[in-house]
């Protein structure tokens, strides 16, 4: 079967909630059967077929073409399958995702991978604020899986993150890993102000010294940490700069905290 392909006809005037279009929930049927699926479009409900041209049959390989930043919640809650997005995606990409893969050949909006539990999201462009963060009212952000961003991430990346890994090849904005509970965030580019603010546990691993570090993350000195070898080895299967890092780069400066909240997290900056 060929991949189920949704091609957005025109740029929509309102935001479209695509959370109903999940690879693991769509039946393998004729395109015309899928056309009747209803979506939230602004304050209206419209048929999928009114907005998208539908071709192919295999919902396990869902392709969205001509995508734009108004297509929200793509892959939200999905448990299996593959989604490939050509163009930008909107907010809430892969929210609560439990498995499978999402690949975005463009940028993604805010709250990417929020509440994600498993699987892989690869954003080949940039992603907005609150990547892997907890939604207002949620206790935890990302809870597992991998968010890989080839470009930059915005502010509050990994806010309230509980588990999993966020790997940013570019830089991040301010408050990266703020209020983090556990998990790993690695950034190869520039990092803004106050990373690790109010973090409890978890690891922030940076290629460069951040613009500023909260006063309550205390410098513990330079160390060789053996677990970094295991961490770097775990990147080997990613299609990313992370897979090409020198696996013997174990020398870091370690900052621990946030002591303002009795935190035992760590901010590590590679030394060589």
């Amino acid at each position: 079967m060929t991949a189920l392909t949704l091609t957005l006809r025109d740029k929509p005037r309102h935001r479209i909630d695509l959370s109903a279009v999940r690879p693991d929930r769509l039946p393998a049927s004729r395109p015309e059967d899928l056309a009747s699926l209803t979506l939230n479009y602004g304050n209206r409900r419209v048929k999928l077929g009114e907005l998208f041209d539908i071709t192919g049959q295999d919902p396990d390989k869902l392709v969205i073409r001509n995508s734009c930043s108004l297509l929200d919640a793509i892959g939200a809650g999905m448990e299996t399958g593959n989604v490939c997005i050509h163009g930008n995606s909107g907010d809430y990409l892969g929210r609560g995702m439990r498995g499978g893969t999402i690949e975005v050949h463009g940028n993604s909006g805010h709250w990417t991978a929020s509440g994600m539990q498993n699987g892989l999201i690869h954003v080949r462009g940039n992603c907005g604020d609150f990547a892997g963060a907890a939604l207002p009212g949620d206790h935890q952000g990302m809870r597992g899986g991998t968010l890989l961003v080839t470009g930059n991430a915005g502010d509050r990346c990994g806010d309230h993150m509980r588990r999993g890994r966020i790997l940013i090849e570019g830089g991040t904005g301010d408050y990266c890993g703020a209020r983090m509970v556990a998990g790993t965030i690695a950034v190869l580019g520039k990092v803004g102000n106050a990373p690790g603010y109010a973090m409890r546990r978890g690891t922030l691993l940076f290629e460069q010294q951040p613009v500023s570090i909260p006063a309550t993350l205390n410098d513990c000195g330079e160390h060789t940490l053996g677990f970094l070898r295991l961490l770097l080895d775990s990147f080997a299967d990613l299609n990313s700069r992370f897979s090409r890092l020198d696996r013997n780069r174990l020398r870091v400066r370690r900052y621990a905290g946030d002591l303002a909240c009795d935190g035992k997290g760590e901010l590590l900056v590679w030394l060589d």
Partner: protein
Amino acid sequence: MIINGVSIDDTFAEAFGMKVTRVVVTAVNHRWARHAAEAMTGFATSVIGCGVEAGIEAELPAAETPDGRPGISVLLFGMSGKDLGKQLESRVGQCVLTAPGSAVFAGMRGDKSINLGRNIRFFGDGFQASKLIGERRYWRVPVMDGEFLCEESTGYTSAVGGGNFLVLAASQIQALNACEAAIDAMRKLPNVIMPFPGGVVRSGSKIGSKYSALPASTNQAFCPTLRGMTDTQLTADVEAVLEIVIDGVSDRDVRAAMRAGIEAACALGVQQGVRRISAGNYGGKLGQFHFHLREILA
């Protein structure tokens, strides 16, 4: 059956079902990995008195260990998963955690698992940190030379313990020479350990004793000094008997090790004083595995 003038008895070794786990101990170099591994496999010759039988399986190059450092692979055999877990925790806690620069990882995946670092982490007194990498959880315990890195658990599986053969020789030194050759050959094989000192045991035992408190006692039928006063198994030209006990991950591994060891001992030949090869058994009623010498060497 005679090999190079050495007579192979028509008998069998009787072995038992056990549980096995493997851990990989790494350190800054092989010297320190071996220090830790030797300490954790000390006093582990027999489950009867030591709770576990353990030994070094192999020296691993850096490329074959989880953290890319030189390592030692250790096998531990116990009568149950519970016994194994208890012994593993105490031995890692006392012998590996304490060794400079060491780390320890699971060396075996199995349907069932036992604790490796799950409780040892509490040595960190709240400063320990967990890292979930892939499906595996690791613990980082702060210690005075940095961090002790250990995997949370390791798998275990069914195994075979108590494979054995006896080397009967014209003198003690000739028996020892033959056993050294056998051990050198057997240590090249994976999945087996020879848990006694240097791989060799001189106090072969029988079940029971005239003293009710003892579960095992000397096997007088193979004691050369008792040749004239017991129902001996020794001929007049045999002055010393040494035994090699083998624990293996599978019966195939034990069989391969027995073959390699016996062939190496027989290679010295009758000219070097090796007279016979025999094996220890309990009449075949206790152990579920029987390793017939002549079948193994056929």
